[in-house]
């Protein structure tokens, strides 16, 4: 076994910023997306505090508009979309395959720097006064009305899109070409199937975001009129452009989260995953079906009735593969020896929050109901249940699951479980009241509201503060573990996927001995060893 690992094998800032090692790039991405999460969280907190009481508290309406726009744009483009694939995908994908690196390490580093460039564009836009168009950049706000730095934000979106495309391309090629002998498609961990499905969407949908952003920039700068009704253009066409990417993008956000949850549930249930092939194929099904439903964002935008009916019907079909996953996770837990460690707690949290988020999506997909609910707090609550309650929770689950592998240190389990509980409570406290607000007619993105909504808004704000404090505690104990944490064992959760067959942290070239290619969910051969504080293979004890 190596005495050095990927963290200690070379030193100096150059060894990090010019590294081609997928693990170091993953760690850099992790730092970057977590910083964006903190930034986006601050914007969210500002919005919620402003809404604590009716009327103006501490910011004027335009600042408020900029706050929620920046919150949305930073969270979507800088945090959620790159979060799981770029940070965890990069770190574990080659190790899970038993490969040495991704297919194109240089492209991988380039995509990280594209992310950085995108973040810089966003910062420029922030310093230039922010944007008040909403993260969706709808015309004519973005082309004519908005009086702010829309162009640099759009440049950011454009560049971040290419970062995402390159990550996706890299992962598809890696999965097709870099699997060692014996690693067949159906021996791949389900996280990789999810990442693969995600990568397909990244490659097929994101270019359209690129051209949309480019056209919008040209529209704003040169007034070409393609999206501008004042010049004979078609503003609804912009929405087709935007949602052709941005609905599939929802699956770029949720699919990798589902992949993580498959790993968490299997490891935490100490049982082979139920319905492996169903979960695997449902990832691909979601990726493809996700392309057929974008019109459900345009039911009330002047879209034709014919298109709306088709899009509504197709929207319901996405529920099928999603439900297949949930049922298989539940069946995996059934009669399992469930261990309530931190990752598993996040897994359970995900299932319940995703249940609510997914089912409320069906309300919104129903044409007649959507007329009532569109652009209210109901939709805000719905997509936060999917994006934050599901994706961000799964991200935290993945962070706690792979933290020992990435840094070789254990965090404080008890505190972590308490934090997980508080994330769950704080999240529901923030967003359950918003469902009620929405059905009662509170429109989204409004600066002010009538007094009768105050109680529900205050509950929501208290929840947001609670979430903020919890995340602060979480990052504190995680950072603390880097310094004072107990050394992590090779396999703390008793999972059988390949990343648990190399040391924690992994050596520079991932494996000193190529790992055996076996069923990734067969846990029968693993037993808990008190001395190690983790799991080890049975034979080792017997011999």
């Amino acid at each position, binding site marked *: 076994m190596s005495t050095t690992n990927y963290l200690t094998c070379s030193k100096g800032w150059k060894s990090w910023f010019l590294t081609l090692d997928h693990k170091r790039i993953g760690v850099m991405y992790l730092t970057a997306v977590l910083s964006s999460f903190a930034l986006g969280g601050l914007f969210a907190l500002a919005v919620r505090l402003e809404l604590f009481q009716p009327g103006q508290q501490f910011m004027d309406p335009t600042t408020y508009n900029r706050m929620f726009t920046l919150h949305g744009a930073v969270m979507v483009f800088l945090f959620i979309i790159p979060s799981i694939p770029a940070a965890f995908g990069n770190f574990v994908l080659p190790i899970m395959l038993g490969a040495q690196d991704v297919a194109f390490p240089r492209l991988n580093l380039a995509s990280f720097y594209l992310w950085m460039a995108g973040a810089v564009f966003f910062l420029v836009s922030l310093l230039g006064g922010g944007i008040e168009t909403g993260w969706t950049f709808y015309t*004519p706000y973005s082309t*004519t009305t908005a009086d702010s730095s829309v162009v640099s934000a759009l440049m950011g979106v454009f560049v971040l899109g290419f970062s995402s495309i390159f990550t996706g391309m890299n992962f598809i090629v890696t999965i*097709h070409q870099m699997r060692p002998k014996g690693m067949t498609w159906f021996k791949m961990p389900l996280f990789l199937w999810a990442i693969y499905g995600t990568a397909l969407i990244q490659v*097929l949908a994101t270019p*359209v975001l690129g051209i949309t952003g480019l056209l919008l920039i040209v529209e704003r700068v040169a*007034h070409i009129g393609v999206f*501008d*009704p*004042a*010049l*004979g253009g*078609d503003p*609804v*066409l912009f929405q*087709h452009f935007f949602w*052709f990417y941005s609905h599939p993008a929802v699956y770029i956000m949720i699919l990798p989260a589902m992949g993580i949850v498959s790993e968490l549930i299997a490891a935490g249930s100490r049982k082979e995953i139920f319905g492996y092939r169903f979960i695997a194929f449902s990832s691909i099904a979601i990726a493809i079906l996700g*392309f*057929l439903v*974008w*019109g459900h964002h345009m039911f009330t935008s*002047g*879209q*034709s*009735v*014919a*298109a709306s009916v088709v899009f509504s019907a197709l929207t319901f079909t996405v529920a099928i593969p999603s439900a297949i996953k949930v049922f298989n996770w539940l069946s995996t837990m059934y009669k399992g020896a469930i261990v309530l460690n931190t990752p598993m707690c996040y897994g359970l949290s995900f299932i319940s929050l995703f249940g609510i988020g997914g089912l409320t999506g069906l309300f919104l997909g129903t044409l007649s109901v959507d007329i009532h609910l569109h652009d209210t707090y109901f939709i805000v609550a719905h997509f936060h249940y999917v994006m934050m309650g599901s994706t961000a929770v799964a991200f935290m689950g993945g962070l706690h699951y792979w933290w020992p592998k990435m840094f070789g240190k254990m965090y404080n389990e008890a505190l972590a479980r308490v934090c997980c509980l508080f994330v769950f409570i704080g999240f529901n406290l923030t967003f359950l009241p918003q469902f009620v607000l929405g059905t009662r007619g509170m429109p989204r993105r409004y600066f002010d509201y009538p007094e009768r909504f105050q109680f529900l808004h205050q509950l929501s704000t208290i929840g947001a503060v609670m979430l903020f404090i919890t995340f602060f505690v979480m990052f504190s104990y995680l950072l603390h573990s880097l310094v004072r944490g107990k050394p992590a064992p090779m396999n703390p959760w008793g999972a059988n996927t390949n990343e648990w067959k190399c040391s924690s942290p992994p050596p520079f070239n991932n494996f000193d001995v190529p790992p055996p290619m076996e069923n990734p969910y067969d846990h029968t051969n693993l037993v808990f060893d008190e001395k190690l504080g983790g799991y080890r293979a049975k034979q080792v004890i017997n011999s």
Partner: protein
Amino acid sequence: MSSHDNETPGATHAHIAPISTLMGTFIALLVLTVVTVVVRSIDLGSMNIMIAMMIATIKAGLVAAYFMHLAYDGGFIRVAFFASIIFMGLFLGFALLDTSEYQDTIQWHETLKAKVPTEGSAADHGK
């Protein structure tokens, strides 16, 4: 990995296009370009664009099949290429299906603009 090294070290197997195929494709492309320019001057009504697109598709097919070796490289590459065309069709198809439905609204905006030239968003546009 050693299996490859044992055969011919460093060998890469790929299709080599014969000169006849390359030249044949080239000539076919030139002929089709002439055809598409000539056909244009015959008035066939709405059929003109259909014919022009068909010829363009055949030309694109020739380039993809022989210059880009798609006729020889099978498997996932072909799937990926056709997927890009299918998803492009999906995008164009749905957008086209839809936009014709609300042209009335855009027209209405136009007439409104014509009636009240000094008011409305059109007037202060771009200032």
